């Protein structure tokens, strides 16, 4: 096993990786920006190297600095964590070229899944449905009409160059297709200087369901069940749970089989997540994340599998330490993302922590790099803590979430704790009755 691992990340995920290393007897090197000199992952690591100034592009995204830090500390391997360089194929290549092990999949797999078009094609090749659509720009309304019949209504018309909802229209039936098509094309031209649009089946109330997989590239592939990450605001997940309250056993078996079959065919090695939209008992592949995910702990809670440990093992050429038959999905788990932001306005709230006390007791896990006196810097992601709850059932888990949120003390900054408390009291959430649009409406209700 590796003797020394450099952790090319910061915050709670750097601490998460440090903990897995320590428990395997591996020495750790923390790299950090000047803004993070007092961060917890720096304090706990065996060695630390300052790699640049506060802006991420000069430090956590600074590939030469990270490789130099690995060289001067004599690290064997580099764990990229989440975000930053974790899905950067060029970085993975350079890590290998400089004689270190990249703790993640091959750069080929990073590249394949890093491009939405090739990723969707790969999924289709493996027999996984994607959202039906036009596969490219549509020339005119006649072609659109023909394609739409094949895709099925309602139809979403989207600007090819688009984003942010502009150049986007929904046609509920054929009757409204022509007008919607014309409007979307006109908006697309106005907004992006390009009138090209494409078509896609419109999903009105999908859930975001993802499957955690682990593979060793030696034939070993397992899934750790699915996660329901539908509670999102501006495409940022706020709360994740497993199992999904929406799936039945047959759907669960189907989607996990889709994921493991694809990963096996891919010859993938590492941790990964296949993300799907789910509506009316159908799953549509969106993308594959070829790295650790923020919400990985809930899968750990219901399986007992240490995902980071397995990442380290397979990166070192070892097989997975379990087979699918060893994995029992037990109980229910929820993760509350605690962000340094106002729970109503979502205004970022960096600053000094004046008091900190994490909840404890049965079924409560806290992954956080916060401590009293720590200054949350304004330069990075606002995630400062993950409160992870485990219970024998969903109701017990939600009750535990309430009592743990009640105990959690973080003062000096605003956090999303009050938002999670409102959520825990909300009938739709308690009933598991939500889709990817639900949270936006819920938070809007609280806004002045």
């Amino acid at each position: 096993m590796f003797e020394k691992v450099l952790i090319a990340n910061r915050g709670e995920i750097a601490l998460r990786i440090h903990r897995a290393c320590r428990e395997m007897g591996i020495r750790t090197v923390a790299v950090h920006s000047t803004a993070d000199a007092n961060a917890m992952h720096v304090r706990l690591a065996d060695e630390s190297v300052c790699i640049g100034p506060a802006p991420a592009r000069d430090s956590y995204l600074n590939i030469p600095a990270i490789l130099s830090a690995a060289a001067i500390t004599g690290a064997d391997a580099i764990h990229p964590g989440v975000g930053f360089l974790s899905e950067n194929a060029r970085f993975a290549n350079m890590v290998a070229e400089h004689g270190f092990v990249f703790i993640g999949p091959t750069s080929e797999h990073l590249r394949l899944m890093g491009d939405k078009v090739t990723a969707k094609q790969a999924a289709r090749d493996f027999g996984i449905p994607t959202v039906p659509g036009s596969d490219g720009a549509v020339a005119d309304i006649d072609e659109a009409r023909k394609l739409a019949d094949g895709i099925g209504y309602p139809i979403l018309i989207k600007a090819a160059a688009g984003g942010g909802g502009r150049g986007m229209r929904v046609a509920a039936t054929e009757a409204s297709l022509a007008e919607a098509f014309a409007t979307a094309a006109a908006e697309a031209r106005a907004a992006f200087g390009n009138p090209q649009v494409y078509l896609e089946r419109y999903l009105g109330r999908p859930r975001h369901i993802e499957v955690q997989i682990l593979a060793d590239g030696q034939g070993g592939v397992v899934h750790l069940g699915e996660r329901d990450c539908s509670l999102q605001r501006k495409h940022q997940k706020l709360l994740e749970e497993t199992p999904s309250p929406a799936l039945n056993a047959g759907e669960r078996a189907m989607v996990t089989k889709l994921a493991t079959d694809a990963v096996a065919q891919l010859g993938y090695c590492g941790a990964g997540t296949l993300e799907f939209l789910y509506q009316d008992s159908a799953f549509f592949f969106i993308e594959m994340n070829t790295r650790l995910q923020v919400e990985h702990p809930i899968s750990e809670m219901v399986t007992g599998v240490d995902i980071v440990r397995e990442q380290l093992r397979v990166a070192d050429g070892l097989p997975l330490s379990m087979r699918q038959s060893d994995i029992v999905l037990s109980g229910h788990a929820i993760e509350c993302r605690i962000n340094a932001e106002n729970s109503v306005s979502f205004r970022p709230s960096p600053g000094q922590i004046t008091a900190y006390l994490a909840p404890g007791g049965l079924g409560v896990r806290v992954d956080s790099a916060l401590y009293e006196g720590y200054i949350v810097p304004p330069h990075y992601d606002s995630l400062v803590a993950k409160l992870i709850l485990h219970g024998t059932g969903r109701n017990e888990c939600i009750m535990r979430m309430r009592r743990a949120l009640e105990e959690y003390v973080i003062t000096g900054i605003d956090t999303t704790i009050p938002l999670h408390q409102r959520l825990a009291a909300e009938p739709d959430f308690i009933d598991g009755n939500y889709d990817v649009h639900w949270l936006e409406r819920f938070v809007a209700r609280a806004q002045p």
Partner: protein
Amino acid sequence: MPDEKPLDPTVGDLVRALAALLDEVNLSEIEYAQGERRVRVARNTAATSVTVAPAPIAAPVAHTPLSAIEPAGTIKAPMVGTVYLAPNPDAAPFIKIGDTVREGQTLLIVEAMKVMNHIAAPRAGRVAAILVADGMPIEYDQPLLVLE
């Protein structure tokens, strides 16, 4: 370690003492921790590696990193890498204590990613202190030398 490299007295003395011990009992590495300070000295065939990292915390209170002890006129490392005081192992050092340097003159080299980066004097001045040893790994923002 020669006397003409005056590190911060406490750190310098500590490193010197440990380096002497390293020689004395013929080791390749010593780690030493006291309170919040930890020093590791190691010697490969080529260079002596000195990594200073915070010790496992006694308390999560803001501590002063060693790099914060810096006199005015300190030139700091613009990148992570390995520092060299001379253009090659057999050559004379670029500068020595007491030298007067002109703006733009090479002070030392930082090797990063196999590239030798010449670190030039940002202004004219007299070399009051050299805070690093030849072949030593350095981190970003680490004090290298003091120009008066």
